[in-house]
């Protein structure tokens, strides 16, 4: 009494593949935006500002795939949780794409001014945010709760760096009013990177829910009620 793996599983795998593709695009855009800032390369920003369409298309396509799977297959248990997680991860990744655009906009303004300082913490924040995104998506694919938990732990580091960037730049602004405008853009960038970390955290929380049915949001864990 063995049975073939139904086409539902193939569609779930295809859904996962599209989410990873979207994750890859979002991560690449964050990387390019931070690199543009460090290298003061305006062409990178332009590429980001006009290149949002593939992510937007995937956003709609993934949502449609999820709707179709829910409507046609009425999935249960782990499959149900996987699709609900996919809907939420999809939204998070789309927001990451938008935040990359926001960074590019701030970067474009920033490079019209002389550099306020050598950028150290912001590239560090970029690396952490990208790693968090990558690990969250790896955890999704591998259904790896401990990797997802690591992502949650990383978020504190990102929050700490954001506070540090703010303090640093405040000192510059107080010393020299001419730095206010570019420094504010850097503060915005750090804020966007911190938000990207928050989205990676959301994804990690969704992975934990998908795998274990534990809801760890808002300082859980609590069993599903």
């Amino acid at each position, binding site marked *: *009494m*063995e049975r*073939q*793996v139904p086409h539902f599983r*193939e569609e779930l795998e295809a859904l996962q593949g599209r989410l990873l593709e979207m994750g890859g695009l979002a991560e690449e855009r964050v990387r390019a935006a931070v690199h543009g800032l460090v290298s003061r390369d305006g062409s990178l920003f332009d590429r980001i500002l006009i290149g949002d369409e593939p992510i937007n298309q995937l956003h709609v396509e993934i949502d449609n795939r999820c709707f179709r799977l829910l409507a046609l297959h009425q999935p*249960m*248990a782990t499959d149900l949780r996987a699709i609900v997680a996919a809907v939420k991860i999809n939204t998070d990744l789309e927001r990451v794409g938008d935040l990359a655009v926001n960074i590019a906009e701030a970067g474009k303004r920033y490079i019209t001014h002389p550099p306020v300082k050598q950028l150290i913490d912001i590239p560090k924040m970029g690396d952490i945010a990208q790693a968090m995104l990558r690990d969250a998506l790896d955890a999704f694919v591998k259904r790896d709760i401990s990797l997802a938990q690591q992502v949650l732990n990383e978020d504190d580091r990102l929050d700490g760096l954001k506070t540090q960037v703010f303090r640093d730049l405040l000192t510059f602004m107080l010393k020299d009013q001419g730095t206010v405008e570019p420094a504010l853009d850097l503060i915005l960038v750090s804020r966007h990177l911190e938000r990207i970390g928050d989205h990676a955290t959301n994804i990690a929380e969704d992975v934990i829910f998908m795998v274990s049915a534990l809801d760890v949001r808002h300082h859980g864990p609590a069993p599903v009620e």
Partner: protein
Amino acid sequence: MSTTTRPLPSLRNVTSSRQTPAELDTGCKIEAEKLNFFYGENRALQDISVKIKPNVVTAFIGPSGCGKSTFLRTLNRMNDIIPATRVEGRVLIDGTDIYRSGMDVVELRRRVGMVFQKSNPFPKSIFENVAYGLRINAMAGSKSELAGRVEESLKRAALWDEVKDRLHESALAMSGGQQQRLCIARALAVRPDILLMDEPASALDPIATQRIEELVYDLKTNYTIVIVTHNMQQAARVSDYTAFFWLGRLVEYDRTDKIFTAPAQKLTEDYVTGRFG
């Protein structure tokens, strides 16, 4: 399409931590204690222990041959009529063992009504189908009382409005869905407190199925309902608690939302997600 196959899971994977949901520890209507059932030498049920709560709907799910219908039929001793069968263990209804010697089986089946997969109205009028149980149990003192009880049962089965002007026409002229609701009305007429339903909607179209499901939902206020179904979406829609059976054993029993969103057992998970069965 992929041709990958998966081996069927084994009962060895079932952890021994299965427990009755804590909220069922009090006020149970039906309780099975280490119930075993044999068709000849074949043990069809193995050590089933379960507590079923009053005034809720409990669904039994599992693949064909898992024992869910056999277990359902032990609850009003319908299996007694199958030759060469044997029961071990106890089934308590309101604390009384229904397999004790001297048990009045006719009275038991009045209290524990049953509705089958295939509607089976008698070849009589709609009215007589519902009145039949009342007559043989001498449960109506007068014609008007009989008519009143028939009307009440048909109303409870959500059928009255459709048949009130043709009560004396043959029940066999009704649609499949109406016939099934007539069988429910017939079961309700003798005022049971438990209703067992064995795949009550599996032969019906989606609209008739929905009416049966709505009826089940409404009836639980007054009855304890146990429903066997192959249709997991149906179990998810109508029941409060779900029991998953596999190879004659009760693998998992919990709140329905838990079973279908986050079951505790891998075997349950594999079954409800369609990985086997």
